[in-house]
Each structure stands twice: as structure tokens, then as C-alpha cells.
């Protein structure tokens, strides 16, 4: 499974959707994921890839980690995985 597929599977599970319903252009809003759901997604992603995502729920749009849509999240995770070496 590629990174992208794994991320989509995690997000789909949180949104209680089939992975085929989650596209790269989907926003968390589109998928009905609220702030608590987002914190759970981030936890699951960190566990899956053994990375630490800089995310503070008080300023979700101000951290370096872009969550504007699924594509941005996947790109951010790829960068964090690459940085980890």
C-alpha cells in the first residue's frame, strides 16, 4: 500500500466512508471530519508512519502542516517521512 492509500484508508475510517469516496481534492469539511476527528486522524497517521506532525488544535491553519485537503496532507506526510530519513 502506498503512503497515499494508507492515508486515505485512515481518513476514510475516521469519516466512516469507503476509501473510494475519499479523493485527493476532498477537504476534511467535505468528509464531515470535525476538530476531534482531525486530532484522531493525526494520531493514527503518526502511529502508522512513526512521524510527529506539528499540529495544534488551537491554530489548525497556522501550523506548518497543511490540512486544506487530502492531497496537502499526503504531501506533508511524504515530506515528514523524507525528513526522517
Amino acid at each position, binding site marked *: 500500500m502506498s503512503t497515499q492509500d494508507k492515508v486515505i484508508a485512515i481518513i476514510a475510517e475516521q469519516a466512516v466512508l469507503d476509501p473510494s469516496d475519499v479523493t485527493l481534492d476532498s477537504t476534511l469539511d467535505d468528509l464531515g471530519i470535525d476538530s*476531534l476527528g482531525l*486530532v484522531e486522524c493525526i*494520531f493514527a497517521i503518526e502511529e502508522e508512519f512513526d512521524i510527529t506532525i506539528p*499540529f*495544534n*488544535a*488551537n491554530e489548525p491553519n497556522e501550523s506548518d502542516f497543511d490540512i486544506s485537503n487530502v492531497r496537502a496532507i499526503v504531501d506533508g506526510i511524504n515530506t515528514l517521512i523524507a525528513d526522517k530519513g
Partner: protein
Amino acid sequence: MKRVVITGAGTINALGHSTAATLEAMREGRCGIGPLEFRDVDRLAIKIGGQVRDFEAEGRFNRQQMALYDRFTQFTLFAAEEAIRQSGLEFIGELAAKSGVVLGTAGGGVSTWDDNYRSVYEDGKNRVHPFVVPKLMNNAAASHVSMEYNLKGPSYTVSTACASSNHAMAQAFQMVRSGMSPAMITGGSESMLCFGGVKAWEGLRVMSKDACRPFSANRNGMVQGEGAGIFVFEEYEHARARGAEILCEIVGYAMSSDAADIVMPSKQGAARAISGALKDAGVNASEVGYINAHGTGTAANDKTECAAVADVFGPHADSLMMSSTKSMHGHLIGGTGAVELLACIMALRDGVIAPTIGYEEPDPECALDVVPNEAREAKVSVALSNAFAFGGLNAVLALKRV
């Protein structure tokens, strides 16, 4: 119904080891938040908190007591000693039989859990100290206060997360007001500043890494504190008859449940608690001069709380003062309402309004007078203290100058 007054106040928290030291720090807008110091702190992402410094429990309590007193109990007994000494009450006979202890704590003996889990899981030990259970139980602090001061009336512990102390004090108030008890020891304490305690909070992603800046547009979360606030609530005629010094009067309270979300606050739930307290106290909204805010410094709490206050007070919201002293002592979770009640006493008795420090940028969603950065002198006749907990459980107290 009886009138209820406060005749003793004691505390220990990041700002000081007494009420006088704490109020002086609040007047000066001092910050008690700094780098955390305990085992494994390097494995935390959040490394700041309002930790109690220079508290030497070993010299204060003997070996048998140390085996039974978690840090939250130590804080409670320390603060209770100051409060009861100030009140001048001695609990004997009928007074002892009817007076009790109602305290709040969210976590109880968190560091006792932490130390002993570490011992059995990490260190692989197969035996723990025989008093682990009586040391960590949430009611340990209330029980030890009852034993130390011969309080034989109704005693128990209330646990409603960040509103625990306010719920406890509301209960104690109710007991004295109804005539059930002539005096009650009440307030709350918390001591979660250990590796497991902070790690759990870290998971929620609502903690700030640098400072607690309530109501400021650039706020980025809460900062934990620790300590205790303990009070003597006494029936007014009982206090007057013995010539006791009265710090202020408690005139009402209300509790409400959001019945909505486990972590997100609700404007309606908060507003119902605030307006309920005014109604119970029989005071007009226009009489309120100061509100000690719940003011956690999270995005969600602060804007919801300001909206609730604006709803309840209408145009008067713009002429009252509302500050969050969590900016100085941190969020004491189950003990927070108790330490914050001290700011209400200072407003009513001394005419000094504690500031919200760390305030840097106005937030249009928190457009109230939050007493930014510097304390202010003002005559206040009625004050409120807000507490809105995770789980949507709210408790607001109303106090009056005597």
C-alpha cells in the same frame, strides 16, 4: 435560608505558598509558568507548566504521613491549615459533628498512579507499597482534612474535570445555606504535573508550548498548573457571633450541563450557568463588576465564554471586567476554581482586579474588558467565578462584598 460567608482562605500554587503571596503576585501580574522539572520531561512535547516550587514535603510531613499523602493531598493539607487557622474555628462538639469537607479534584493521586505503573510495567517489579490505593483515591485529600481537623459531618469529593472545585464549593455553600452545616471546608486541588499527567494532555493537542494567553488573538492553548485552594464557608450569624473576619459573602450558584459534546464548549450551557447564578443570588446583571473567567487560553473556550457573557449581560458586558488568572498560575484543572476564587475575594475585599497577563493582540471574538496585563483598582460589589468543564459540566458562583 442562611447567609454564607468566607472566613478563611488558604492556597499553594505556582504564584505562592499562601493567600497573601498569591494575591501579591496577581496584583503585580507575575507569571508562575516556567520550564517543568520532573523525570522524563525530555520525552514531552509540552515542557512548561505552573509548577509549585520550593515545597519541601519531607520536612513538613513525617514518614508515615508521606506514605499516605500524594502530592495533591499534601497541597490540600497545606492550604487547609492556612484557611482554618485564619478562620479561628476549632471543631469540637456540635460544630465538629455537623461540619464536613467537600473538595474537588479531577485526577486525584495522578503521580501515585504514574510512579507505581512505572514500577510494575517499566521496572518489572511485582510488588507495590501497601498504601497505593488509599494514597491515590480521589477522596484521600478530603478524608485527611477531616481527620486532621476533627470534621465529622458530610464529607466527599466531587470530580467534574475543570469544574470540580466550583461544583464542590457550590455543594458546600448549599449545605451551609440550608442550615445543614454551620461551617464547611471546601475548595479543591490538583497535581497532574508528572510525565503521564502531561503526556495525556499532550494527546489532545490543545496545550501551548510557550505561554497561556487567554483572550489574546494569538493564543495557542492552555498551560497546566498545580496546587490547592481551600476555604472555610461559614454561616453568617455564626461568624458574626464570634467576631470572625469576613472575607466576602457567597450569594448564589448555578450548575448546568451542555448535554452536547465531550470536549467542545457550548455558549448556551455556559450562559445558563451564568444567568442561573445571578438568579439564585437575587442580583441584577448590572450589579456584577468582575468575572473571573474560565479563560483557558484555547481557541474554543475563550470565544465561547465571551459570547456567553455577552448574551447574559447585553450592553452591561462592555462595562464589566473579566480576567483569566490562568495566565499566571496555569490551569489547575480540578483545583482551578478554588485558586481563582482568591481573585474574586481580592476584587471584592481589596478593590483590586487581577489582570489577564500575556495579552498581546485583541481578538474581535473576545471583545470584552479582559484587564490586559496590569491589575486595576476598582470598587466591585458582586463578582462571579466561571468554570466550564470537559464533558459540558458548568458551575458558576456568585460572591458579594460585605
